[in-house]
């Protein structure tokens, strides 16, 4: 608690500090002493195989997974005392932005603005910010449409617009490119590029670098809950370097394998 390195807000504090983070899911240790620092304006990718702990790592950063040991600070404030959630935009790992009742794109994105509109009253400026966020992901013409009428890539764009609606300084994204075709990936990468150019700090979990590769300053690779690489993004090798290569996911193991090997 009285660690001098974690002191109240100052401009030089890292945006995210994770030190010695340990977490378990059930009886399984998922994080085994993770250290991670993200400085202001950096774009950091968290890479690793399925089950390596990268999702758990970001979810612990936003307080969704309790740590058994170690500490986390956002903007220099220990997570336990952090209240300025409007500075953080979060894109959870989802394949859909829909729920049990129809909702328009604008309605879903508006809920991202609630961190700035405390009592749920959206001012004219709030509404303008919501429309701006929808425009940033290129869905301005769909703002009044039901989210259930959107494609998979458009769902991801809605989720990202929702995170951008509070005009955050830190954007945390959990696999924003999952299940998104290349064309939509390019649009998402373009949105992200504009955010980064405006000074937003980004931490994103990725399965593969893909279209956002040029934006990434640093890659942190996890394996079995430990950091095994922290530095420049690793170069993709072999068939993984091909833009259109096949993905074989472990959860599809019972299906006949299409290895994507060169024929």
């Amino acid at each position, binding site marked *: 608690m009285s660690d001098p390195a974690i002191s109240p807000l100052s401009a030089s504090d890292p945006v995210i500090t994770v030190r010695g983070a340990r977490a378990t899911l059930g009886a399984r240790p998922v994080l085994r002493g993770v250290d991670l620092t993200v400085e202001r304006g950096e774009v950091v990718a968290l890479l690793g195989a399925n089950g390596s702990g990268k999702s758990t790592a970001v979810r612990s950063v936003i307080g*969704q997974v309790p740590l058994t040991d170690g500490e986390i600070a956002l903007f220099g404030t220990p997570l336990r005392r952090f209240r300025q*959630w*409007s500075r953080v935009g979060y894109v959870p790992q989802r394949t859909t932005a829909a*729920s049990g*009742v129809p*909702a328009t794109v604008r309605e879903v994105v508006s*809920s991202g603005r609630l961190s700035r*509109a405390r009592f749920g009253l959206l001012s004219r400026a709030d509404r303008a910010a919501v429309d701006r966020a929808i425009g940033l992901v290129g869905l301005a013409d769909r703002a009044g449409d039901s989210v259930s009428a959107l494609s998979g890539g458009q769902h991801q764009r809605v989720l990202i617009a929702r995170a951008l609606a509070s005009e955050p300084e830190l954007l945390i994204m959990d696999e924003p490119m999952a299940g998104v075709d290349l064309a939509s990936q390019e649009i998402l990468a373009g949105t992200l590029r504009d955010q980064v150019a405006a000074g937003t700090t980004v931490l994103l979990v990725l399965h593969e670098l893909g279209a956002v590769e040029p934006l990434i300053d640093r890659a942190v690779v996890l394996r079995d809950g430990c950091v095994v690489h922290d530095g420049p993004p690793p170069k993709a090798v072999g068939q993984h370097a091909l833009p259109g290569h096949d993905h074989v996911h472990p959860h599809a193991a019972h299906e006949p394998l299409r290895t994507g090997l060169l024929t």
Partner: protein
Amino acid sequence: MEILETAFMQRALIAALLVGITAPAIGIYLVQRRQALMGDGIGHVAMTGVGLGFLLSTSPIWTAMAVSIAGAVTMELIRAYGRTRGDIALAMLFYGGMAGGVMLVNMSDTGSTGDLSAFLFGSLSTVSDADLWAIGLLAAFVVLVSVGLRRQLFAVSQDEEFARVTGLPVRALNLLIAVTAAVTVSVAMRVVGLLLVSALMVVPVAAAQQLTRSFRTTFVLAVAIGVAVTLTGTTASYYQDVPPGATIVLLAIAAFIALTALAAPLARRRARLAEAALGVPGDPAGCVAGVPDARRPGDDVRV
């Protein structure tokens, strides 16, 4: 309108109106979080409250509310913290609540299982002035919560994890939804009955969303359908000798079927309009816009 001249029908219609507003208003959040049957569970638990009311010889509306709030909060806590087999725990709560109600009623001096049926299936004609005050007060609370906090409740019901990261008090809002649903059950108990109350929370919402695209119109239309079926059902039960609760629920289901039948032509019309907005039908230019070219492999390797 002779129906409006008798005092008990005036009370019945006011009670029906309030239930028609409140049940879909809170029900929409339950449907949104895919907990459509939670109202049913609360209805079962509330039976113990009714039994308790008989046993203590007090108004069952307040005891039902107290017990159903306790039940709803327990259900929410099981949902939030339960790691293993939440459905089993919920089943215990549901059937325990029902059995408790039957047991308590039979233990009381005044009641018998027969008296329960007025609460199970609704009994509009027995709504007293005191009941009406209670229903009005509770309905005001439900409307205040479901309309006043609509953006917060929408966010929490849409995506709980995201809502937590916006700094919303997610746990408190979840409990508020549970408590409000429990209050609604006690409001609706006299009109449609505990076994049918969940229908009025769910069916108008399901009917409305056959046609709607936004949460706001779904909300308004669901409440309109709720009010229409409760008032029609109550009026019908006055002129024909039919049970109001069952009539109301069957009317709601009829509305659902009618709107579902309407939905397909409406969707076709919207699709035509959308196509017309894009350009002349059959114009190939409308079919190649907007998608940037994908990158091509830099070498001649094919996968």
